[in-house]
């Protein structure tokens, strides 16, 4: 195991190379207000982050990552365009696996730029690839924006699309919704019973709690409406399934995706962006012909990413988490921007894992 001072020294070196590329050094506080993170991630974050409290500021979390505070800082008073870099500890609560570290150093590089997203994606990826080039890692890439575009383009109601969009990052739930909306599974008995009735249903029971009778009646009405909607067609379902299964090197993936776009034309702009990104990556010397691309990559673990995503993995050490990872998070800037928004992309490296792999090599 590399020792702490070696890790800090390597982190400093990595940060210097990001500074040289134009990154402004930022150093967000270790303690973050818990409310922001809870609003973004929901209760699940409590299983992953350490929570502490005091009487004045209430619940606070030991920062589980840098992205959220960096976005907040930029949205508050950042210049445009901006590049940031940082290095420091992040903390992850561990309840299940004693071999996973609960504190480790991350070094990151983030770009906030409206002009050329493809070029910014390629810059972040290439900068990080450069830092790990000797380690023989496998790079995996994806683009959550493609699946999002496919959902938005489905021939179904806005309500159904919104439900699917909300669960893009929860593949099992997403699947269950798709099965229901396509009529592949039957409605539960309780729903059938509800739909067999007419008129308002809330009349007889005692009304308690904050959810009002009007809200309940509105949902019953929405469910009745939804029951009359035609299922998502078999054709669209097959195309969507083919889409989610695409796993190829970038050029072949693009070819397959263009075929699928015949049935799901709404993904075409997202595919144009993928193609532009591939060109920008190639221009930075990335060997795109050998780069893996998976449409479903990053759907389980990277909740705020909504476009390009990537990870670098040590093939010989499948027990290790990614050595580096990152992606585009335009929507996060909107959520934290209080009305403002800006396209943004970034990535982080793990200097401790880099040193560990280097030690194993020598």
């Amino acid at each position, binding site marked *: 195991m590399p020792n702490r001072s070696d890790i800090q020294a390597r982190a400093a070196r990595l940060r210097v190379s990001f500074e040289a590329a134009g990154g402004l050094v930022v150093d967000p506080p270790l303690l973050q207000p818990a409310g922001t993170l809870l609003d973004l991630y929901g209760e*699940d974050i409590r299983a992953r982050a350490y929570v502490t409290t005091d009487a004045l500021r209430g619940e606070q979390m030991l920062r589980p990552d840098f992205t959220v505070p960096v976005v907040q800082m930029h949205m508050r008073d950042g210049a445009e365009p901006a590049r940031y870099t940082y290095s420091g500890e992040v903390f992850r609560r561990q309840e299940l696996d004693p071999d996973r570290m609960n504190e480790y150093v991350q070094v990151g590089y983030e770009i906030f730029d409206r002009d050329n997203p493809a070029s910014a994606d390629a810059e972040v990826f290439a900068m990080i690839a450069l830092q790990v080039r000797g380690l023989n890692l496998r790079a995996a890439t994806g683009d959550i924006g493609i699946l999002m575009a496919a959902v938005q383009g489905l021939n179904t109601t806005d309500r159904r699309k919104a439900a699917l969009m909300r669960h893009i990052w*929860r593949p*099992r739930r997403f699947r269950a919704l798709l099965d229901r909306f396509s009529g592949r599974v039957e409605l539960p008995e309780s729903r059938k019973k*509800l739909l067999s009735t007419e008129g308002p249903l*809330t009349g007889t*029971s005692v009304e308690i709690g904050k*959810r009002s009778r009007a809200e309940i009646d509105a*949902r*019953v009405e929405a469910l009745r409406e939804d029951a009359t909607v035609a299922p998502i067609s078999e054709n669209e379902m097959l195309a969507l399934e083919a889409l989610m299964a695409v796993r190829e090197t970038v050029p072949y993936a693009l070819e397959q995706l263009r075929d699928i776009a015949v049935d799901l034309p709404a993904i075409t702009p997202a595919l144009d962006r993928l193609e532009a990104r591939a060109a920008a990556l190639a221009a930075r010397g990335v060997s795109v012909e050998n780069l893996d691309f998976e449409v479903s990559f990053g759907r389980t673990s990277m909740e705020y990413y909504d476009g390009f995503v990537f990870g670098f993995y040590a093939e010989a050490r499948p027990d290790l988490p990614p050595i580096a990872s990152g992606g585009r998070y335009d929507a996060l800037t909107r959520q934290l921007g209080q009305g403002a928004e800006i396209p943004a992309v970034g990535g982080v490296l793990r200097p401790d894992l880099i040193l560990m792999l280097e030690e194993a090599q020598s």
Partner: protein
Amino acid sequence: MSLKLGVPSKGRLMEKTFKWFEKRGVTLSRSASDREYAGRVDGVDGVDLVLLSAGEIPRELAAGRIHLGVTGTDLVHEKLPRWEQQVEQVEPMGFGQADLILAVPQSWVDVDTVDDLDAVASAFRARHGHRLRIATKYHRLVREFLTDGGVADYQLVDSQGATEGTVKNETAEMVADITSTGETLRANHLKILSDGPVLKSQATLWRSRSVVMTDKEKAALKQMLALLRGES
């Protein structure tokens, strides 16, 4: 040192535990004074009785400060991460049955499943500007159950007692609580979601995995387990 047996220190749970052991030839008794938390074990040599709150027994087992302990499955699963590695189930005891369930107001005619709950949580948050609040003391179990079910936009609020009343008081929209008959829930105008329960619980005898025993303690444990399992 003697083998230490931890049992609940008061109420019906204590009485039923005493009866369960009695039936198997092990007599547990509290000291003469009702106020003093001390007692004795007859029928097996070398065993000490430790009277504890049922809620503390999982922790004491995990720390290895008691060898055997009686408490509910719910408390072991809630309080001990990776409980299988810390304690071993010796015998389910057949009393103290209760289910950890999710319950919503009866007036929510549109909600019967976790699926419904997720949809409602989303609409509720959009309308009221905060996440749908679930009052409970079983934070870990409920969170794991809802994560597994893919529910988002909810918030757990801590409630250590009178949980069923939180909805009426508008400090929560629904509850996750232990119930055996559902009586209290109905009286508070709540109904149980159909695709539960989160956990089925009963009083159970557990053995600590984290304690190193002397020969004398091992002998006492062997004798005790043989008696309890009717093997002698």
